[in-house]
């Protein structure tokens, strides 16, 4: 039982940053980021390469790269298209294009082979009669910290309020003196950092290669949709449901059917509650 819980939680921990990133962008820019998979794979490979000698240096460098990539993605793929009035599906395609470019960068800079990041805390612990890697627990704790941090940022600071305002109505927010464009860039930076964190988590627990980019993308998208694209709370809930669903499928039905399980959950949610399982009147209003 405890092994199941830890597996599900660590899977959730990987998904949470990805889902938050997708739903943040959807909220602020109205874009579903189809480049998420490319970001993740880039993160895994970059962290493995740059952190080969010094893990901390690698993590910091990768996080910075994520922030830059998020901003660059907005500036070259989204902003010009938005100015031309390209519809949402076109913006989505643009993110897909950016993801392909990132895949290309990953391939040329780091080689295409699967990359594994060495655990940040080596060794394992035994809880009851279940033994697990310390890294797994660390990832869960870090994910929880990240959620707490983002909650503080979005909900308890003026920055978060301004971001909410921009997400609702950029023009009106502009009238109140908020520079909407800057906050949109900020959202992309935060989202880029989140995706990168998710990619690094995945690379420390398993491995990341160019081929799994679409799979990670679907994890993130499905998690975001089943939780509801509106809020941080929804994102965490969606990631949790996805993580639990995949773990239970592995345990009780058949191993290796993660995507199928997710598709079934997604279809059920879209039929029963298309706005997302965790979208309520109170939470839908927040970024």
């Amino acid at each position, binding site marked *: 039982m405890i092994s199941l819980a830890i597996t599900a939680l660590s899977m959730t921990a990987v998904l949470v940053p990805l889902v938050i990133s997708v739903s943040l962008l959807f909220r602020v820019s109205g874009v*579903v980021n189809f480049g998420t998979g490319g970001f993740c794979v880039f993160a895994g490979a970059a962290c493995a390469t740059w952190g080969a000698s010094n893990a901390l240096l690698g993590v910091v460098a990768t996080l910075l790269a994520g922030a830059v990539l998020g901003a660059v993605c907005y500036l*070259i*793929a989204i902003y*010009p*298209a938005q100015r*031309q*009035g*390209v*519809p*949402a*599906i*076109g*913006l*989505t*395609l*643009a993110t*897909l*294009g*950016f*993801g*392909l*470019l990132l*895949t*290309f960068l990953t*391939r040329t800079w780091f080689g295409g082979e699967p990359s594994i990041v060495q655990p940040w805390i080596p060794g394992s612990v035994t809880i009851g009669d279940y033994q697990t890697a310390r890294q797994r627990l660390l990832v869960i704790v870090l994910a929880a910290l990240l959620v707490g941090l983002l909650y503080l940022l979005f909900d308890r600071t003026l920055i978060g309020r301004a971001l909410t305002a921009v997400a609702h109505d950029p023009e009106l927010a502009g009238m109140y003196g908020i520079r909407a464009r800057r906050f949109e860039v900020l959202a992309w930076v935060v989202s880029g950092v989140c995706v990168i964190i998710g990619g690094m988590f995945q690379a420390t627990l398993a491995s990341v290669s160019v081929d799994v*980019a*679409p*799979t990670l*993308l*679907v994890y993130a*998208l*499905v998690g975001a*949709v089943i939780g509801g694209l509106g809020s941080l709370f929804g994102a965490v809930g969606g990631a949790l449901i996805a993580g639990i669903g995949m773990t239970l499928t592995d345990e009780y039905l058949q191993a*290796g*059917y*993660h*995507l*199928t399980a*997710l*598709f*079934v959950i*997604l*279809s059920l949610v*879209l*039929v029963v509650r*298309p706005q997302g399982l965790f979208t309520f009147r109170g939470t839908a209003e927040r970024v």
Partner: protein
Amino acid sequence: MSSTVNESEADLAPRLRRPRTVKRGGGRAGIPRSWAHVVGPPLILLVVGLATSGNEYYLHLATAAAIAYILTASFNLIYGYGGIFNLSIIITYGLGAFTSVWLEVRFGMSFWLATLVAILVTAALSVLIALPSSTLNELFLAIQTLAFALALAEVLSQWDEFTGGTVGIYLIPSPSFFGTDLIGGLPAFYWLTAVAVGLVAELMRRIHRSGVGRRLVALREGPRVLASVGVSPASTRLLAFGLAGAMAGLAGVLFAHFQMVIELETFNFNRLAALLLATILGGAGFLYGPLFGVLALVVMDELSLATSQAQDLIYGIGVLVLVLATRGGIAGAVDRVVRRLSGRHRGPEPELSEGDPTTSIEAVAAVPTGPPRALEVRDLRVAFGAPWPSTTSAWWCGPARSSG
């Protein structure tokens, strides 16, 4: 002073008018055009076939491009015309390939029967995808169909007998036609593909000209319009899914017998990106969009071969540039040039019969670019579902405010 102005006006007016009356003179200009649409595709296929039959590599390229045309036409039908961003088309394509091969190897069916069954299977699968997703907007539909495509690929990869797992299926039997073996990569197989492409092109032309095409475009632009003239948007949607699924299945069958070796990896995300690129770069919603798209893709693939292994880079840049720079893709640009040369600025689809009630909607809807248009409605209120004049409300919609 005033008399000179009047004179110059009198001089100018006929000159302004004359070209229009000449160009519009009768329906004569229309007849050769529509004949060109009928005869064009087979002629192109014939010329390409004869030109490439000597060179193995070019023949290979031509056959691959012909198959890619069918797949792209299928996506153009559902996305370009119908506005349904159905990403599961890629696995429909794969399923067509595997189904036909499985039927032949396992049950000893002939190629022709297996093709028919595979097309029926893929059409049915496509309709099945359409059923639960009917209420979703395009982004959610994209997510659901993408999830479906990956999930089905996951399931199929576990079914070793059907897909050969990660290894793939080898030794695919070649179709035979009255004793002649049509072996993939040889001229005979090209002609088989050419016949299929000709049929698909003719089907697309007929759809483009007929009410079905207009219904699909109306589905893209505003399903409520369809419902308000008594056409069910739901069944139009199912039709789009079914037709697109059947065409993707056909492309898959041909692809499998052309390659003679298939594996699931072939029908992956990159192939999907290539398909999107071909459709949108070529011109989504244009009759000749897929043709231009496939040509562009062949050029890009050759480029990436020449620059070795940079397919991701070229596709990525291609997608970014086309989102930014092109409206209506290559076919849209060609269409604009043709219309400018022929002096026509209205009516994007000259084939439409005049006086058709949907013409004006179509005319506004089918051209994303061109001179800015605005629709202003004033003094309108809705009572019991029907518009009545009033003095209280006004709408305006035009390029500046429509967000798509």
